[in-house]
């Protein structure tokens, strides 16, 4: 299990690619971003970006899923206070395969809460043509080994 101390600045973490389907795009859009360009191939022809494209927030949520599976599920994650910046760099379309690469940009113990530390991540997501589609700078909180139970410290 990764605790705060296991995140080394400069480390780069690679993730398993994620395939995006038209059904995924429409399902997210129907629930959270019901605009024509995310819902319907025909209706999306007369929008600023032509053709069915994923909601930006859907791309972010797919990023979250990759991040959770690749790092957070086996960590001392305590959630996130926020995200500095998200840039949508290219549309995501059905059939795209998204590959995530995350760099650990910073790590510091919390001054006010000694049981945790803050880790800064920089995410780069590319599509199958190696074109960047998403960049994100986010901060997450992780429990420190010193604050964990005795048996876990020994592991």
């Amino acid at each position, binding site marked *: 299990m990764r605790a705060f101390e296991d995140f080394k600045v400069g480390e780069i973490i690679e993730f398993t690619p994620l395939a995006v389907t038209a059904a995924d795009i429409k399902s997210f859009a129907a629930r959270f*971003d019901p605009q024509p360009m995310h819902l319907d191939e025909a209706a999306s022809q007369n929008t600023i*970006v032509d053709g069915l494209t994923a909601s930006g927030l859907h791309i972010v*949520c797919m990023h*979250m899923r990759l991040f959770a599976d690749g790092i*957070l599920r086996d960590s001392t994650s305590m959630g996130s*206070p926020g995200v500095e910046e998200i840039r949508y760099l290219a549309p995501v379309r059905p059939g795209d395969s998204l590959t995530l690469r995350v760099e650990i940009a910073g790590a510091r113990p919390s001054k006010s809460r000694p049981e945790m530390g803050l880790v800064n991540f920089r995410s780069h997501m590319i599509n199958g043509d190696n074109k960047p589609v998403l960049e994100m700078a986010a901060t997450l909180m992780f429990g420190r080994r010193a604050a964990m139970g005795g048996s876990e410290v020994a592991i």
Partner: protein
Amino acid sequence: MYFEDLRVGTRTEVGSHTFTADEIKAFAREFDPQPFHLDEEAAARSHFGALCASGWHTAAVCLRHIVLARQHQQAELRRRGEPVARTGPSPGLRDLKWPRPVYVGDTIAFAQEIVELRTLASRPDVGLRVARLTGTNQRGELVYSVLSSTFIERRIRHLDGAQT
């Protein structure tokens, strides 16, 4: 209504939503499978103390309310025979904060306020609207805040008409 019709400071209340345990867990299973979003007992043992929504779930519900409010406004404009500007895509978000968790049963009221309007030398057909989106719980505490940028169509064909 085009980019030129927007005003900095315009604030719109876009609706509210009460988060249930079932939908918090369903969203988490799909997009944010961490114990404190998935399971009451695991959440009780975490520093959150109780089951709480993924921050992206709050962001997604806010987006739904923003989109529906805009579509409602656009339908009104069409009904009155007024032009409706095309919007999107968004170049991104910044300064996103989740100051407090959203717990089961919390009712979050969402609002949007225009904070910046910028024309773009590179894109004469659209302007950039920056809005602060917020979510506030039933105790008046801020739980979500983000600066969201969106391209909005300019009244360019009207300008062209005036110039000829």
